């Protein structure tokens, strides 16, 4: 039984360490545009007790803790005005679609730039997709203006519409780093009436206060698990010295 107490505390500590890593990543990305904070989901993991048919009463199940998954919080972040005409933000739901070497990816980080070839790209160089493929500008296009519904136009006329998609189930999106998300099991649907804002950028949705308090919680829980391990260990030592005494 004492061994079980040790193992159960250990399972909690391993899970807490992972939670700490997730919190650290949220904090590190506090100023990353379009970043979505993550949290860890724990679940009880029941371990069957040893089958003891000889005894009258079967052993009780043991419950360990297990981190089952990390969930992203898809709440929108604050919208901050910048003077840059190539900074775009989506007000409300929706994702920008970008072309990466691995296929289409989705991002909320609208800090876009132009390349010398005139492509609209993310800071990682991924091309931003419009209705008819990547958005390209040439020498005649000088003032780029983006309307609320994502229509891009310049002096030379309409250039297409920025593709903004939504997902029926956002929870299956996976973060891939570089501000992009991947969708494996769900198909994006084109959003008919997106609200695209030009000259604005969406900050990360990390709430520093919440992360701080979660961090304190984790360190305290971790310390109390350690003291539990210590106590279980003391118990065992006492038992050995008490029971093992030969008078």
């Amino acid at each position, binding site marked *: 039984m004492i061994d079980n107490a040790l193992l159960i505390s250990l399972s909690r500590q391993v899970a807490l360490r992972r939670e*700490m890593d997730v919190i650290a990543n949220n*904090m590190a*990305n506090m100023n990353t545009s379009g970043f979505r904070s993550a949290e860890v989901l724990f679940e009880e993991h029941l371990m069957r007790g040893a089958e003891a048919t000889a005894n009258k009463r079967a052993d009780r199940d043991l419950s360990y803790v297990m981190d089952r*998954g990390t969930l992203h919080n898809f709440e929108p972040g604050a919208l901050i005005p*910048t003077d840059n005409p190539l900074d775009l933000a989506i007000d409300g739901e929706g994702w920008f679609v970008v072309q990466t070497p691995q296929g289409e990816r989705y991002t909320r980080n609208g800090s876009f730039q132009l390349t010398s070839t005139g492509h609209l790209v993310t800071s990682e160089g991924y091309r931003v997709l419009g209705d008819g493929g990547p958005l390209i500008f040439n020498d005649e296009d000088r003032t780029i203006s983006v309307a609320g519904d994502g229509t891009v136009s310049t002096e030379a006329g309409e250039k297409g519409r920025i593709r903004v998609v939504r997902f029926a189930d956002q929870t299956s999106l996976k973060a891939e780093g570089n501000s992009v998300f991947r969708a494996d099991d769900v198909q994006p649907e084109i959003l008919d009436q997106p609200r695209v804002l030009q000259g604005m950028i969406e900050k990360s949705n990390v709430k520093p206060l919440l992360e*701080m308090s979660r961090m304190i919680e984790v360190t305290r829980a971790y310390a109390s698990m350690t003291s539990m391990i210590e106590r279980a260990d003391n118990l065992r030592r006492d038992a050995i010295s008490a029971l093992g005494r030969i008078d």
Partner: protein
Amino acid sequence: MRALHIAASGMMAQELNVEVISNNIANMRTTGFKRQRADFQDLLYQNIRRPGAATSDTGTIVPTGIQIGGGVKTAATPRVMSQGNILMTEKELDIAIRGDGFFRVRLPDGRTAYTRDGSLERDANGTIVTVDGFVIEPEIVIPDTARSISINAQGLVQAIIGLDAEATDLGTIDLARFVNPAGLQPIGDNLFLETESSGPAQVGIAGEEGFGTLLQSYLEQANVNPVSEISDLIAAQRAYEMNSRVISAADQMMSTTSNIQ
């Protein structure tokens, strides 16, 4: 303990953010300066429990999995090429560009650099040069006897020479523009060099389609907005502080572990 390294990456990113902001503030009064902004991105994620992995033979799968990010990185420090305020100076060789375009500057090594800083001077020969003495292209020489120099919106330089009644044309200051001006490489001294990412320079006359116009006796101030820089600085400093708290919390957890007897 990954948290230590993740928080360290956060601290390094915020340190760079403060560096970019302090450079903006330091150049608040630099003619033609364009402010920069640090853009961050999250680092790669490690899949500890892969989403989509089968949990049973009947086809149930892990819906979200465990993904732990590796921290943050600086993706770029793009330059915001917006127009700065135009300030009157009453000096006849101060020229501001209203709109798109750069002056072309010939560097001593023969390369061409580009600048928005229009505080120009005359050298000993009367050639129009930058404050560093670099010749503005195309080279325009103002004779000794010239007076009341005027530069119009299209860059035409005229002066009354000697006792003439009418002004003489001395040359035209032209402008260069780029598809992607944010991709220019800054080399200090208010100068930029053309790069692959900026695209080649397109030279044209001021006021032509796509080019800005010139304004004599005015200078373009930096486009730094002190209020937003200071608030960004506060945000960066706090973010730095919080990341250092994560490091001390992770450290505390490790010390609890090592203190188990």
